[in-house]
Each structure stands twice: as C-alpha cells, then as structure tokens.
C-alpha cells in the first residue's frame, strides 16, 4: 500500500486535492454558519422529532422492501441469461440516474389516485398512496432499490461457483443451495446493500415530495422539513442539514469499517 501511495504523480495529487476540497467546502460552510448553541433545542422540537421518526420509519421500511425485492432481482441479473437481460438491467438501474422528480412524477401517474394502477387500488381497497407514509415508503423504495440490486449483483457475479456446485454435489437441491450456501456467502454485500439503500431512502426528497406530497403528519421527512424550513427558518434548516450530514457520515463510516472493504 505504501509504495502505491508514493507512486502517485504530483499532478494527480493536485487534481485529487481540488476534488476533495470541492466536496468538503460546503460542509465547512454549513458547520461554520450553523447556530450550534441552539442545536439541541431545535433537534428536540416536536416537528423536528416527528420528522426524524418519520425518516427512520420510512428509510427502514424501504430498506426492508429493497431486501425482499432486491435479492432475487440482483441474483437474476447476475446469474440468469436471457434475451433482453441488458434492457432489464437498464430499467432496474434507471431510478439511480433519473431525476427523482421525474421518478416521482412517473409514480404519480401509475400509483397516484388517478394513476392507472392507483385508481384500481383506490376503488378496490379504498387505499390511496399519496399524502401517506406508505406512499413515502413507495417513493423511497423506488429510488433506493437500484443501489441494493447493484450491490447484490456485483458480488453474486464474483461468487465462487464451485462452492455452489459442491453443495449440489453433496445432494442439496438448488433452492437449498441458494439459502444455505449462496445467501450466507453474500452476507456482506447484503448488509452493504441494506445500509446503502437505507441511507439513500433517508435522503430521498424529489420523488417523495412529487408523489407523496408534503404532509406534516405522514410524509414530512427530514429533507422535506429542511426544504420547508429554508424559506421560513434558516437556522432550523442549517441544524437539520448538520443533523443529516452527521447521520449519513456515520452510516458511511460504519460501512467502510465493516462491509464495503471486505474479504
């Protein structure tokens, strides 16, 4: 490692420094202007506490949905071979590059009260997703699922297929092999995928506000709270910003320590 570090040319170092500074400066600015003395007071305000708990609930539910849907999806993308696989992969990854507002709009016209599926859900079950926590979970899952799938797919591709063959050789059925050999071997990337999709869901704004709207009781997560506060109470906006940086940073630090750097 040492020798590799030393062999980086100076010009590359310079470029990297500029890039790092570019990423760092906004946080320095935020923490400099933030009214730290009122941090505890603002964070414990009832509306902020409500947003924190909504954010946690929505991110956790969304990470769970990603887990359930993402494992089979990532597995099929990694292992299956069929016509149109590349198109399927492109569609799966689309929410990652699509502006979340566009994703939210698409969700609205599919699952909104007048959307072609939402209409039926409404008339059959009397359930509408917009302006509910469930709607916010749907929006968050939509944008964070690709992160989970990518994490599973890349490590499933690298999985030592001899271990799965050995399992079959020893008499385990393919489904048993999946649950007793493949899944445990993917443990680290499943964890990483859960953490990544949780963090992505936590920061979700565009799709949520477009699809689930801004309902203080049901959908006003921390990013929405921040957005609202920006116009009415900049101090509160800054503190919420700092709070989100702290949460996200701690997720990333935990990730690096445990799952992203593995084997």
């Amino acid at each position: 490692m040492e020798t590799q570090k030393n062999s980086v040319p100076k010009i590359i170092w310079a470029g990297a420094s500029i890039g790092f500074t570019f990423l760092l400066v906004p946080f320095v600015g935020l923490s400099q202007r933030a009214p730290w003395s009122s941090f505890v007071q603002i964070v414990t305000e009832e509306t902020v506490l409500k947003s924190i708990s909504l954010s946690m609930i929505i991110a956790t539910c969304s990470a769970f949905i990603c887990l359930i849907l993402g494992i089979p999806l990532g597995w099929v993308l990694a292992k299956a071979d069929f016509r149109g696989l590349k198109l399927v992969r492109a569609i799966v990854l689309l929410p990652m590059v699509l502006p979340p507002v566009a994703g939210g709009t698409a969700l609205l016209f599919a699952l909104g009260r007048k959307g072609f599926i939402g209409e039926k859900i409404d008339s059959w079950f009397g359930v509408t997703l917009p302006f509910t926590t469930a709607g916010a979970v749907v929006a968050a899952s939509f944008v964070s699922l690709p992160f989970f799938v990518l994490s599973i797919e890349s490590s499933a591709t690298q999985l030592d297929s001899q271990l799965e063959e050995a399992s079959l050789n020893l008499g385990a059925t393919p489904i048993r092999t999946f649950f007793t050999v493949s899944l445990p071997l993917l443990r680290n990337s499943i964890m990483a995928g859960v953490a990544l999709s949780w963090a992505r869901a936590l920061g979700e704004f565009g799709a949520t506000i477009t699809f689930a709207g801004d309902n203080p009781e049901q959908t006003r997560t921390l990013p929405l709270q921040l957005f609202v506060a920006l116009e009415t109470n900049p101090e509160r906006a800054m503190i919420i910003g700092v709070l989100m940086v702290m949460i996200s940073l701690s997720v990333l630090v935990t990730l690096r320590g445990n799952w992203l750097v593995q084997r």
Partner: protein
Amino acid sequence: MTEIFLSGRTQLGLEEFEYSFESNSSKRIAVVGPNGSGKTTLLRLIAGHNRLHSGLLKIDDYVYDEPASGNFTPAHRRKVTLQHQGGSIFPHLTVEDNVAFPYRSKRNSKRKARTLASETLEAFDLLQIKDKYPNQLSGGQVGRVSLARSLAKQPELLMLDEPTSALDIESVGQVHQILQSLTTTLLLVSHDPIEVLKLSDSIIALEENKIIQFGALESVISRPATQWMSKFFDLNLVSGTASGLEFKTDSGEILQLSQSYSGNVEVSFPSSAVSLHLSPPTGSPRNKWKATVASLDTKDNLVRVKLVGTFDCYATITVPSFNELEIVLGSTIWASIKATELNVLQNPIPART
C-alpha cells in the same frame, strides 16, 4: 462396485470433447493427461455440471444423461460426488457443519446430522477441530475435511480432482492412506505418477479432449499410447523398509540409498536410470540384481523392458544397446541402478486401521 458407462460428445465454448469408456471391473480409475486435455470436464460431465450433446452416460443401471431421450439427472440427484480441486470447503461453516452438510441434504434433522457428522469426523481424526472455520485450518486438514465431507454423502462413485495438488508431503501421505482404505469406487484426476501407481488399478488417458487409452494399470504402463504417457509413467515404485542407508524391498532385496531413512518407505526411480548387463556389473553402481525379462516394447528408438525377479520394475534402454545385449523374452539378465537415482518417499504416519 459401481460401473460407469460413458460414450458421448459435448461442447464447451469452441472446444469439443469426446469420451467413450466403460469402467467394467475397475474400482480405482486414475484420469491422466496433459494440462487442458479434458480431465476436469470428464468429471464435471459425470457429476452433472456439464451436459452431453449426444451419447449416453450411465452409472450402474441408471441413465444420468441421454440427450436423445431427453433424460438428464441433475447434479444434486446423482449418487456421485465430485470433489473440486482445492476441496471447495464452505468458508462460512465450521468443520462440523461442513461435514454435516450432506447429512442435512438427506433431510436429517439438524441434531441427527451433527451426530452423524461427529461419527465421520471421529473416523477421520478431525473431532478436535470440529468447531474451527476453514480459514483456521492447515492445508492438510482442509484436504481431510473435504474428503470426510465427500464421503459423508456415501456416494457410489467418488470423483477427486487433484486431491493432493496443494498439499504438503505429510498431508499427501495422510490423504493417500485414507484413499487406500476406501471401498468406494474412485475416479481420480492426478498429475502425480506416484499417486497414480499407489492408488489406481486402471487408467484413463486423455489427450486433446479425447480418451486415447483406457485399461488396467499394468497394461497401460507397459504399453503407453503416446509420448506424453510414456514420459509420465517412466517411473518404478518399490515398497519396503529403510534403515540408514539400506533399503530392503518387501521381497527381501537390499538396495543402497544415498541418504539415511528409517521405517516403511517407498522408493521410486525412472526406468531410464536402470542399466542392463549380461554379466554381474562392476564399478560404481551400488545396486545390482538378477532379473528375468518378462516383456518388451519398442517405440521411438527406445525399448521398454519389463523385469521380474525379487521385485518387478521397468528399464528403458536404447535400441542399439538392446541389440548389443541380445535380450529375448525369458532371458536372465543383470540390472543395476545408482544409489543417487533412488528417490525415497517416506510414509509419514502409521497406516490407519
């Protein structure tokens, strides 16, 4: 005894493979051939990881693969075990759970599977490391654990892909002793001629993705079909006991070694190192013995002479010296070999009972 019948073709990518053999009464078949000659693919076909494109694969009376009739038994329903090179031990399971794995697959309860695994571990002298994870094991332990696990399935045919290629000498000895004590029908890919001589009773020789020779060990060694084969088997193996510089063959012949050893050993030497003489040789060779010419095989200006006497071995000599010696079948002759040509293989631990 398990009978293998295979006659068919398959294709992987651009490579074509063609196999045809019937194991008959062979119990321990060694699969040999140069790198990339189709050895592993042969095992994978029988295990069910690759499919035939045409032909038939039968184990005993069960059709495992017959494209014409659409018959194909998937890997997990075949009564064979393929042990990959390196063992493919599950890194996320303890030694005990690795060995319990095939028992679990047979729908035993977790507790029953562990009890059965413990019995297997005990038989393999692995009980004391049952709670360890594979990354905590030595190479030899990994070799024994993978064998224990393969056999826990109680396969009718055990296929091993170079089971000792990554092991140190001591572990190789341990694995060989386990394999020698087995009654399961064995298909063994090996790059080690000594291993083949020790463990097998017949040989499948592959070259360019085809079986070029199949037969009993003796007949293949005495008439290797290709140059690669004759080079591979240019080797004699004699067992006996060593004490100091003296090696006494099981038949009582005494040979001199160049280094001191003790206990049960095996001595190997290339057939080209054996010299033949009409009268008792004089000079530097320390080892000379009288033998009878049992068979002769000429190929590429070389003659392979089979010698029988107190112990059997091969000598390879050139055609001119063969003509000079006027050797005929049945004639009695003197053989000699230099002590430095004798390569001693020590058996590390007493034989298992």
